[in-house]
């Protein structure tokens, strides 16, 4: 008896010590969780030895680095609800074996009158049932988490489909696990013992039937979600496939479905029809309502408008420019008429004419207009004149021609 007490207190002591290791080296362990290996520089030799002894970390091979033990990785994933790495594993078969063994030890202890041992076995039985229950609850929780986030921990549709598939397989395994629990066998096993019956029959049955309902629910929701994923995938392929086809065949024209004897449902869309209405006075009560409505209309506000002020200034400017342009053109035309009227063999200098007539045009603009007028004439009329440009090079090195004056004469002269 005292041996057992000693054993228990030793287990307690070591357990507390080793659990504390988790906290003490939390950072290094978490780095080992997120990466492949645990960074050793953060750990002293003693610390590493202790972690290895506690089976919190292990060394898969002599030369390789130190890694988290699978159970610890699972524990962390479970604590973080990290759906990429959370494992679903109900392990019903093994638990059932354990339950059978524990029930037998419990029976033995009872028949031998070892009350303390009997209590211990009952406690372990309770823990085994709780573990089983907890594993199902965790697995179901993990499934719901994944479902509710639309498998948000993976981004690509293909990955979502694969994850959904994996989740569905897990459900099948969990359901298979539930099916392994045969309550007829358990009833036989517990016999007439009240405590066992309460634990292994009524409690377990109630819990497992809840899990069963949840699993079926998650399963049907996962199937629905899968159908949606598949539909999204098929749409995406259809859109890109059709776009590629139309790009390759820009002149593709499908049949005129509207001319078929059976017009396809999808193509039959009626013309829009506006349900228009206008005020009518042929209904006495309505007339009153309409009168009221008319009264409620906001009175249009007429602002006095000054006509002169309404004219934009830019237009005045523009018309002024146009008027000057027109006057210049007319003066140049008079110059041409003068040349016709006075056939001079030497021709008439445009600048001399400008000076003589006392007009105010700038020399440059005058010459420009005279040349423009000549170039604007039809070819036949151009032949009647001879336009001589008096010009020089801009400089020795620049072949630009500067026009100093033009002389216009009749071709016949």
């Amino acid at each position, binding site marked *: 008896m005292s041996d057992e007490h000693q054993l228990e207190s030793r287990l307690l002591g070591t357990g507390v010590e080793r659990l504390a290791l988790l906290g003490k080296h939390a950072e290094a362990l978490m780095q080992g969780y997120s990466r492949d290996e645990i960074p050793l520089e953060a750990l002293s030799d003693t610390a590493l030895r202790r972690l290895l002894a506690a089976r919190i970390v292990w060394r898969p091979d002599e030369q390789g680095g130190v890694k988290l033990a699978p159970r610890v990785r699972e524990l962390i994933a479970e604590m973080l609800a990290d759906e990429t790495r959370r494992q679903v594993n109900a392990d019903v078969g093994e638990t059932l074996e354990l339950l059978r063994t524990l029930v037998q030890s419990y029976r033995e202890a009872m028949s031998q009158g070892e009350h303390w041992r009997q209590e211990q076995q009952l406690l372990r039985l309770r823990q085994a049932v709780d573990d089983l229950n907890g594993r199902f609850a965790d697995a179901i929780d993990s499934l719901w988490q994944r479902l509710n986030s639309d498998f948000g921990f993976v981004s690509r549709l293909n990955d979502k489909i694969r994850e959904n598939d994996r989740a569905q397989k897990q459900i099948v395994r969990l359901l298979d696990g539930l099916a392994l629990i045969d309550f007829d066998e358990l009833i036989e096993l517990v016999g007439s013992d009240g405590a066992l019956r309460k634990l292994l029959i009524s409690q377990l049955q109630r819990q497992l039937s809840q899990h069963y309902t949840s699993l079926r629910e998650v399963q049907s929701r996962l199937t629905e979600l899968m159908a949606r994923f598949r539909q999204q995938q098929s749409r*995406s392929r259809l*859109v890109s496939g059709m776009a590629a086809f139309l*790009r390759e065949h820009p002149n593709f024209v499908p049949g005129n479905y509207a001319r078929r004897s059976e017009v396809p449902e999808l193509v039959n869309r009626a013309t829009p029809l506006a349900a228009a209405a206008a005020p009518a006075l042929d209904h006495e009560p309505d007339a009153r309502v309409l009168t009221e409505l008319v009264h409620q209309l906001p009175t249009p506000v007429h602002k006095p408008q000054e006509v002169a002020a309404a004219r934009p200034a830019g237009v005045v400017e523009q018309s002024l420019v146009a008027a000057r342009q027109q006057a210049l053109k007319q003066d140049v035309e008079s110059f041409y008429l003068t040349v016709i009227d006075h056939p001079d063999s030497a021709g008439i200098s445009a600048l001399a004419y400008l000076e003589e007539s006392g007009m105010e045009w700038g020399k440059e603009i005058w010459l420009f207009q005279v040349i423009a007028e000549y170039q604007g004439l039809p070819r036949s009329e151009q032949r009647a004149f001879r336009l001589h440009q008096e010009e020089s090079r801009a400089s020795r090195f620049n072949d630009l021609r500067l026009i100093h004056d033009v002389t216009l004469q009749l071709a016949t002269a």
Partner: protein
Amino acid sequence: MIEHGPLLERLLAGEFICAVSDDRAFRRLADEEVREQIDTYLRPLNRRLATNDEGSVYFLAWRQLNDEAREQLSRQLGETLHSLMPMLEWLQLMQEALGHDAVVAPGDVLKPAELSARCEDNQSLREHLERLAGDSFFGSQSEQLDAQMKQVFKRLKEHGYLLQPHADRQVYLVTGKIDYLVDLVRFIRDEENLPVDDETPTAQETLL
């Protein structure tokens, strides 16, 4: 019948009713009795209620197809086909800009400003938008990216593919009319036996 007045008016005006454009009306239309009432009302107008395969949108179809109706349908089909390529291109652009591997679906929220910003950072998206916006269906004359995006969204809203819940906010919802368009694409693919595959080969099939 009076409670269906506004709904009838929208249907008659050629609108597509879906869970996004009018959730209440859409749920009411799920009731067969209501659908029958509406059909009875529409009978003298030579119209009836129609829906797509999944029942995600309702619209009005001709009850009797006379020559005039067929003429109208041919014209309409021509217009829809004209819009097909730009619409498919738009769906692809949205998919690329959002970084999704699924086509936009009814209820999705789209923000032109955000999409513009993404196109700005990415030459290929930018060119894609430019090509798209210049298509006669969208008809943008602008060379500015923001203006192009705005024009594209404006046209999609006019065509009922998008809904703008608040006139002063540049946030749009995709409507069920997108479903109709995808259904139509699938229909054309099937009718014309086009070599466009939308099934993913399963792992076993690939092994074979």
